[in-house]
């Protein structure tokens, strides 16, 4: 399956991927409304987050694991592995906010929704051909491609 591969050798830590993520997951899909209006009203937050240690940065989000620990831990059925697409999918309706997946994912890819008792997690931009973060990255710090299984 196609996945997003982050490259720490060239990620410059600009956080534009986060900006794109928030915009793509907003209602308006408008960068300014998403950040200046919706964020305050509905608690939009990026599903991809940039980690930095000294000069090294990398933008991380769900790696859509072959054997996802989050799915194993999810008590409500909100997280499932789609056997056809390979994506690790999240259904917000089902989530009860028990944070089991947040605890279980050893990659720290799951976050709490800023206002709801729900999680947020990368969905590889369901409905888009190219994930927003990959498209926004100015330095090819994120590559979306199929590299075989995991």
């Amino acid at each position, binding site marked *: 399956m196609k996945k997003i591969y982050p490259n720490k*050798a*060239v*990620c*410059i*830590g*600009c*956080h*534009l991927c*986060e*900006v*794109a993520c928030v915009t793509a997951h907003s209602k308006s899909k408008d*960068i*300014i409304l998403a*950040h*200046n209006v919706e964020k305050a009203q509905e608690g939009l937050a990026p599903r991809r987050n940039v980690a930095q240690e*000294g*000069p*090294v940065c990398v933008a991380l989000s769900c790696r859509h694991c072959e054997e996802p620990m989050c799915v194993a831990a999810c008590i409500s059925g909100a997280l499932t592995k789609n056997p056809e697409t390979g994506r690790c999918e999240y259904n917000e309706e089902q989530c009860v906010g028990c944070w089991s997946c947040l605890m279980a994912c050893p990659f720290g890819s799951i976050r709490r929704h800023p206002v709801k008792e729900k999680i947020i997690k990368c969905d590889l931009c369901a409905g888009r051909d190219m994930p927003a973060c990959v498209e*926004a990255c*100015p*330095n*090819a*710090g994120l590559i979306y491609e199929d590299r075989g299984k995991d």
Partner: protein
Amino acid sequence: MAFAPINKNYHDFFVVRDKDACINCQVCVRQCSYGVHYWDEARQCVRHDNTKCIGCHRCEAYCPTQALLIQEKPSNFKPNALWRPVFIKNVYKQADSGGVLLAGMGSPVDIPVYWDKLLLDASQVTNPSIDPLREPMELRTYLGSKPTRLEFETTPEGPRLKTPTKPNIKLNIPIMFSAMSFGSINFNLHVAMARAATEVGTYYNTGEGGLHESLYKYGPNTIVQVASGRFGVHSDYLNAGAAIEIKIGQGAKPGIGGHLPGEKINAMVSETRMVPLGSDAISPAPHHDIYSIEDLHQLIYALKEASDYKKPVSVKIAAVHNVAAIASGVVRAGADIVAIDGMRGGTGAAPAMIRDNVGIPIELALASVDQRLRDEGIRNDASVVVAGGTRCSADVIKAIALGADAVYIATAALLAVGCTLCARCYTGKCPWGIATNDPYLAKRQNPDIAAKKMANLMKAWAHEIEEMLGGMGLNSIESLRGNRDKLRAVGLSQSEMDILGVKPAGR
């Protein structure tokens, strides 16, 4: 602000932020390496300190909502034709610092750009133009010493060349990447230049910082440089490239040496240059073993000896008043290529006074060198390569018509990867990740992307050169070389035209 030097508020730029568009993403905060933008905790928004801005436009380019505009600050000094603001501000600066004014990149001063005064010819009716898309068009160029006449002998296997030939290097495009040392620009860009040169079939010059071993594999497209500091020079290095260049002078700072501050000497630079980590790398103004043409001759032959006479040796000099005589001496000393660097050539760091006031424009230097070598009958003994202020393919083609075999580009190559000519290369804080070895900044140049852009630029110029050649009814770059009849001048004095060897437009 209190306790600030008097010039603090006479800064050059100011930042305009469109509050409605700003989403407080702090992208600008992270991109600016000069600390202009910052997150204001009290007001919970991004703000800026205009005094620190050096006008690199990085933030403007990266702001995802185009909320930023970097503007020149029009200082409201009273107008004065003599005391222009730059002089006033420089005095303030030096009164504060007591130091030499430093500058980076090529000189921005208003000396005539002769490229702009030269116009190209085109065919009409009698000698039809050539369509490069349908007919062959030869841009291939060989650099090195060429025999003046060829002798052949007949053998049972057919005719054979009798004249001994000297080593030449083959360029698919008459443009090369000029010397920019590893250290003054970072490794990612060396990788990019090496890959781009390999892709388009030309050369890049290592500059005086040596060559990291991991780049030896690009050797067939590399020119290795030997400068007065002799950084990273050893026999493997000399044999790693396709040609060797002795750097005598640099157009941006003729007559003076170089100084790479210790902060730029990281582990890899130190290993490559063979200098201690963190210590300043100083290139003396002269080569301490060259005080005459004879000494130069010795060095040229020492290098030829070390490389088995398999590689052409180039000598790079700055365009100064006596450049024609100097070039003649260089050729007579045995150089296979003379590279002339004009006064608008770039630099990583130079004293501003020298950059802006020493040397002569490359167009005049080129014309006089070419003429002199012809007059002396030694033009074929060496190729002439020019550098310093080539901005577009038309400049390249005009240079060739004036007599150059090829041109070196440096500033244009850096522009291709984002440089905005803010001219603060010497600070080591280049926000575009070019003139910096700070790992946080240097990775802004992804070698994959940079190589692609540099190669694209070369290819684009090559296409344009083919178009212009075709328009003149020529099908090879060879036919244009030194063909000054293809040039006409506008707005030049008679003596300038004499030096350039061109007629005025209309004649």
